[in-house]
């Protein structure tokens, strides 16, 4: 027994020491302890390529920090947050739609031991993130099983979407729309039934260092201007990288797009796009597709193993999409510039129309590059390197490289419209108050000249009243509270009302 006891004690001590050592070592050496992840600065420009010309904002992080843990709702934090705040989300599963109708909110997913904070739509929810505010930053989330989009923006400027892992989120993975000045970088996206990264009707967007595979379209730039698509790995999609003008949209142009330094390979995935969608007409095996867009530069990409064609440049009529014509949108691709690209093993199993072209051109090899339909002003460098069809009208490029262009983001964030207090007061008075108040006649509420007598030199009194009206006159109806106006608008309109004359 004694021996046994000693052995037993030894085992206990050894185990304890081992456990202590393990935990102690974990505490000391683990880089993942909770305090180690610092809040990000809410900066848009990060020096991604070691190039000093991209200026870094010095805007310091100043807001509150909300911590969201498994079992909480991210949305509860969003409702409490104000511009400048940071919402840190810890590993766990969050089944919700996070909508952000505020400015300058940062979402930072914290990955621990390879456990991600995961937004899971369970194929019941529409979108993971929906934002309309400016300065939204979303990073470090796994997003899966939504029906609409992983991340969708409507009109938010100055956004950053990075380090997200998006799997099967329905129609689009990352979809900023009507946004200006945004960065989409270091994301992984797969199993998306339209475009994994879809830049739609935006200006000044950089799409960098993303991995997109197993989607119908990898990266799509549509009806957008000043977009740089660089250092991405687009493979095993139906189409790798697309620059489009789609007709029938309110913003009609795509121009100034640079597609460079990307890997675009083996984009041979069966097309699983929804019937009727524009991308459902893309033949499997399409590397880069330019449809109707202008001023697109394709440079230094490695384009290989795309069985239909490496690069195709087409007008809308030949693009394979069935959509109504739009006389306000130019259907032809103009001024496309193909600089040096490494192209191997493309066009080895093309669709019927291209096979017919091969026959007509007495070619046994499918095309690296195909231009079809109308368009003018396009050019190509060293065309003899490739198998090309339809490039007879292409001239020599006027440039040899785009190295001067480091980024197509703005030098500084897109700013909201500058507005004086007086103008805000004017817009509020005529836009809202004038429904019931006129200067010297009675509409529904008191004439303004009477208000001016009551609140002479006292705009704050007006603010108090419109927040919490008290019916002081039997001969007038009670005013509904106007507390929905912003604090700035309330004081601005109060001051404005005291200044107006006949």
């Amino acid at each position, binding site marked *: 027994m004694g021996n046994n006891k000693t052995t037993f004690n030894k085992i206990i001590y050894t185990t304890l020491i081992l456990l202590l050592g393990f935990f102690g070592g974990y505490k000391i050496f683990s880089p993942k302890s909770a305090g180690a992840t610092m809040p990000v600065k809410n900066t848009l420009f990060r020096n991604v390529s070691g190039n000093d010309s991209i200026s870094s904002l010095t805007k310091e992080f100043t807001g509150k920090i909300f911590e969201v843990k498994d079992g909480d709702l991210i949305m509860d934090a969003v409702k409490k947050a104000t511009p400048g705040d940071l919402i840190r989300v810890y590993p766990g599963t969050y089944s919700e739609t996070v909508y952000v109708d*505020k400015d300058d909110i940062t979402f930072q997913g914290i990955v621990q031991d390879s456990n991600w904070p995961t937004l899971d739509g369970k194929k019941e929810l529409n979108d993971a993130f929906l934002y309309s505010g400016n300065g939204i930053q979303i990073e470090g989330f796994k997003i899966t099983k939504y029906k609409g989009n992983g991340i969708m923006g409507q009109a938010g400027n100055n956004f950053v979407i990075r380090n997200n892992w998006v799997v099967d989120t329905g129609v689009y993975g990352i979809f900023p729309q*009507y946004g200006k000045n945004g960065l989409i970088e270091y994301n992984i996206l797969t199993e998306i039934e339209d475009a994994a990264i879809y830049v739609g009707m935006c200006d000044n967007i950089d799409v960098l260092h993303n991995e997109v595979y197993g989607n119908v379209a990898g990266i799509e730039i549509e009806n957008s201007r000043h977009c740089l698509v660089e250092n991405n790995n687009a493979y095993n999609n139906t189409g790798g990288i697309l620059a489009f003008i789609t007709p029938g949209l309110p913003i009609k142009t795509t121009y100034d797009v640079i597609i460079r330094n990307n890997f675009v390979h083996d984009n041979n995935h069966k097309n699983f796009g929804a019937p009727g969608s524009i991308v459902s007409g893309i033949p499997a095996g399409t590397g880069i597709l330019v449809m109707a867009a202008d001023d697109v530069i394709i440079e230094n990409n490695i384009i290989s193993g795309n069985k239909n064609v490496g690069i195709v440049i087409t007008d809308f009529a030949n693009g394979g999409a*069935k959509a109504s014509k739009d006389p306000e949108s130019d259907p032809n691709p103009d001024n496309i510039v193909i600089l040096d690209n490494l192209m191997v093993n493309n066009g080895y199993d093309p669709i019927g129309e291209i096979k017919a072209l091969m026959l007509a051109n007495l070619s046994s090899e499918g095309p690296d590059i195909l231009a079809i339909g109308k368009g003018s002003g396009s050019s190509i460098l060293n065309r003899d390197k490739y198998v090309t069809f339809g490039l007879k009208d292409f001239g020599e490029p006027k440039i040899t490289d785009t190295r001067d262009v480091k980024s197509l983001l703005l030098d500084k964030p897109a700013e909201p419209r500058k507005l004086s207090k007086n103008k805000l007061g004017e817009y509020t008075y005529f836009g809202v108050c004038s429904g019931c108040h006129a200067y010297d006649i009675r509409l529904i509420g008191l004439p303004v000249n009477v208000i001016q007598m009551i609140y002479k030199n006292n705009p704050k009194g007006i603010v108090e009243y419109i927040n919490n009206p008290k019916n002081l006159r039997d001969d007038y109806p009670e005013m509904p509270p106007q507390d929905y*106006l912003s604090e700035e608008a309330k004081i601005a309109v109060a001051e404005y009302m005291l200044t107006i004359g006949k």
Partner: protein
Amino acid sequence: MKKIIYILFIVLAVLLLVFTLNHDDKKQVKEYVEVLNSNFELCKTCPPGFQLNEENECVSRNLYMQYESLENKGVGGLKTALPKVRDGFSPQQIDLGRYLFFDPVLSADGTVSCATCHDPELGFSDGKERGVGIKHTQLKRSSPGLWNVAYLNKFFWDARSTTLEEQLQGPLFADDEMGNTPEKLIETLNNIENYKQLFAQAFPKRKANDSIQLHEIYTSLAAFESSLISLNSRYDQYAHGYAKALNENEIEGLNIFRSFVARCAECHTPPLFTNQQIAVIGTPEPEGLPFDAGAEITFNDKTRRGGFKVPSLRNIEKTAPYMHSGRFKTLRETVEFYTKGRGHAVPKGENLYLHWHIWEPNLTDTELDRLVDFLKTLTDESFKPKVPEKLPSGIQIQHINT
């Protein structure tokens, strides 16, 4: 001497009498003028939503002027500027347009006014499936609401006009709508003294006795129509940053509305809730009516067959029934159309270029209810204009639809 004083006294008395009589005459005339003017003096101030500038123009003012929009197209999200507005009419032109708008004298037989089909009590539509014109003629399409037309650049369901002035000549001179002719309209108005005076007030640069011109009629009607501004709904309060303006159900509806599953906002894009494009969506015609080719005719383009202008959804709650033919009685039926399958109502043999956003979103019943909840937050009639109590033509004001 006494005699002289006596005569002077008499002369004075006579003068006094004459003076008094004269004075009374003048007073009478003046009062008569005032009676006329108090009936039909045009408003000198702008309607709500407008600021009067030094050139006597009403310029549009609203909270959306705080914002920008991408490429200045007036489409985007919550805090996005509106499209370019049509403004700058004088208060008098707007007010004259108001009288004309409600006056059936504009029609061939004095029975139909603009307001017959565009009733302010019914969102400036008429509550009918399709409009009814002169002699109770059934029209082909439903009467669109007129709120915020100042921001539109396409008019009629088939987008065949690009200005309000061009548009309004359509119903004025269509045989089955107001049935008038330009010649008869001018003659009628020039024979109404009230209108001659009112046009002189609204167009002061020309001589007061000049006859009324057609373009002055068009300008006045366009001025009134473009004064119909609705931008203060509960949705707008939410958009400008007041989160409490919408309840949970309505916010859920907003999120469904702008999501890429339902895709409503892709065409009904804020802040106007239209992107002003043509879309072929394949809604059914009323039973027994032939297929309406819509924009195919306007643009002579088969790819636009069955295409119609995307309407704004502001005050949509007020303008049932819905779609170009008024086929759907309720908002619920209307939103349900979009989830019943791409092309489900397209007649056999029609090979339409259906819009790519028409797909199979598989919206649940609850989601459809939430969409309707949201659509009702777009209602705002706080700037609804007053219906004139009396018309310059002397015709009794009609309240046909109420």
